[in-house]
C-alpha cells in the first residue's frame, strides 16, 4: 500500500517535536478523516533555521509532515511557501490515491506556520 520511503519516514520520522516560542506555528486539521498536523518554525534572517512537527494521523499524514519539515529546513521563506503538496508526495515516491487528500496537509501546515510568522513580523 505504501512505498518504502513512506514507511521509512513513518518509522523514523525526522524533526518530531515542538519549538519553545516558535517564530511561526501552523496547525491544520481535517475533520473528515481526523488527521491533525502542527508545524513550528524558527526563522533567522529570512531562513527557516529550525522546523518541528507533531501529527495525529495515519502513516501518510506522519510521513508527509516529516518530509515537509526536512524539505523546508534551511530554505528561505519564499522557497518554503513554494513547497506544494504534490512536491511532498513526489519526494516520498508517491502516495496511494485515497491518501492524497488527508495526508497532504503537511505543506498546508507549513504555509500556515510561515503566514503566522509573517503576521507576527507585520505587527
Amino acid at each position, binding site marked *: 500500500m*505504501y512505498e518504502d520511503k513512506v514507511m521509512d519516514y513513518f518509522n523514523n520520522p525526522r524533526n518530531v517535536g515542538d519549538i519553545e516560542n516558535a517564530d511561526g506555528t501552523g496547525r491544520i486539521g481535517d475533520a473528515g478523516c481526523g488527521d491533525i498536523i502542527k508545524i513550528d518554525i524558527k526563522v533567522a534572517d529570512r531562513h527557516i533555521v529550525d522546523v518541528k512537527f507533531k*501529527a*495525529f494521523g*495515519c502513516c501518510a499524514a506522519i510521513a508527509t509532515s516529516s518530509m515537509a519539515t526536512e524539505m523546508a529546513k534551511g530554505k528561505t521563506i519564499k522557497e518554503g511557501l513554494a513547497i506544494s503538496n504534490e512536491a511532498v508526495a513526489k519526494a516520498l515516491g508517491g502516495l496511494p490515491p485515497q491518501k492524497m487528500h488527508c495526508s497532504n496537509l503537511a505543506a498546508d501546515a507549513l504555509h500556515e506556520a510561515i503566514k503566522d510568522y509573517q503576521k507576527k513580523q507585520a505587527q
Partner: protein
Amino acid sequence: MKRIYLDHNATTSLDPEVLKAMMPYLTGEFGNASSIYECGRMAQKAVVEAREKVARLIGAQSDELFFTSGGTEADNWALKGAAEALRDKGNHIITTVIEHHAVLHTCEYLEEQGFEVTYLPVDEYGLVDPAAVEQAITDQTIIVSVMYANNEIGTIEPVEEIGKIVKEKGILYHIDAVQAVGKIPVDVNAIGVDLLSMSAHKLYGPKGVGALYIRKGVKINNLLHGGAQERNQRAGTENVAGIVGFGKAAELSCDNLIETAERLTRLGDRLAKGITEKMDHVRFNGYPLHRLPGHVNVSIEFVEGEALVMSLDMQGISVSSGSACAAGSADPSHVLLAIGLPHEIAHGSLRMTLGKDSTEADVDEVLTILPRIVEKLRAMSPLYQ
C-alpha cells in the same frame, strides 16, 4: 520474524483438516453435483454430507440449509427475498445502527425500493434493547434483523429475548450470525429465528462459501435465478470443494466449541488486563459480560488507528482498527460512533480478535510491543501535549 495474527474477525486461516477434506474435490472428484453419472453423484453425496454438518452446528435440519457464495450474499438474499415476498403484508423493516454493511447497505437499497427502515440505537455497550424492538413494531413491520454478535466490538445481542417479542407479533426474524456461528453455541430453535446468515471463512473454513438457514415453511423470494440447484432456491453450480470445506469446518467447530470459547475468553481477559496495567488513557469498547470469546476492542487516546496497525504490522502483529483510514472510508467505524465515541477516540481504536491457534505467548508479545508503539506515536501527537 514470527507473525502473530490477531484479526480472526476479518478472516481465519483454513484449518489443515478442512483443506484435507477439500483436496479430493480440487483434484479427481471434480464432477458437477447436478450430473447423474458417477463423479456427479459423488459430488452430490459430498454436498449432502456437508449440509448435514453445517445444519447440526446451528441445531437445524439439513433441508433448512442453503449454500451461498458467502455471508454477504446470505444477508442480501434473506432481506431482499423476505421483503419482496412480504411486500403485500407491509413495508417496514427494523434493524440496528451497528449491523454489518451487508445488512445496512441492503436496507438502504430496500429504502430506495419503497421500504421503510428503522435503525434502532444501541447503548454504550452496543446492546440493543428488546423493549425498543417492541416499541418500534407497527402493523406494517414485516422483518426484524438483528446481528447475533457485533464484528467490531464483540457484543453479543439479546437475540433470544428479541426472538420472543418478534414471534408473538408473527413477524419474520433474521439474524446475521456470521461472527457467532462456530464461536459460541447457536441454536436456531432456542432463539426462534426464521432466517440466519453464516460465512465459512470466519470459522476456519474457505472463503467464497456461506449459507442461509431458512426455517421450514418460511417462504422468501430467490436472489439468484437460474438452474434448479439448492432445491430451486439458489441457482448456480455448487462450489463443491468450498461446501465440503465448510462442512468440515462446521464439524470441527462443533466438536471443540466450548473448550475453545473458554480458552479464548481467558486469553482475551489476559490481554485486556495487561493493556490496562501498562497504558493509561485507554478505554474498552463493547459489553464486558456478554461478548465474543477472545475479542478485545480498545480505544487508545491521542494516537490514530491506522498508524497503530501499521506499526504493529511492522513488528509482525496483524490487528485491525475502526479508524477511517483503516476502513478505507472517510469516517471512522459507524459502530464506535454509535456507542458514543467522539471522532478522534474512534479513530484511535484497535480491534484484536484471538483465534484457536492464539497462545499466551502471543498475548504477552503484544503486551510488550504495543505500549512502546503507543508511547512513540503519542510523542508525535499534538493532542498528547
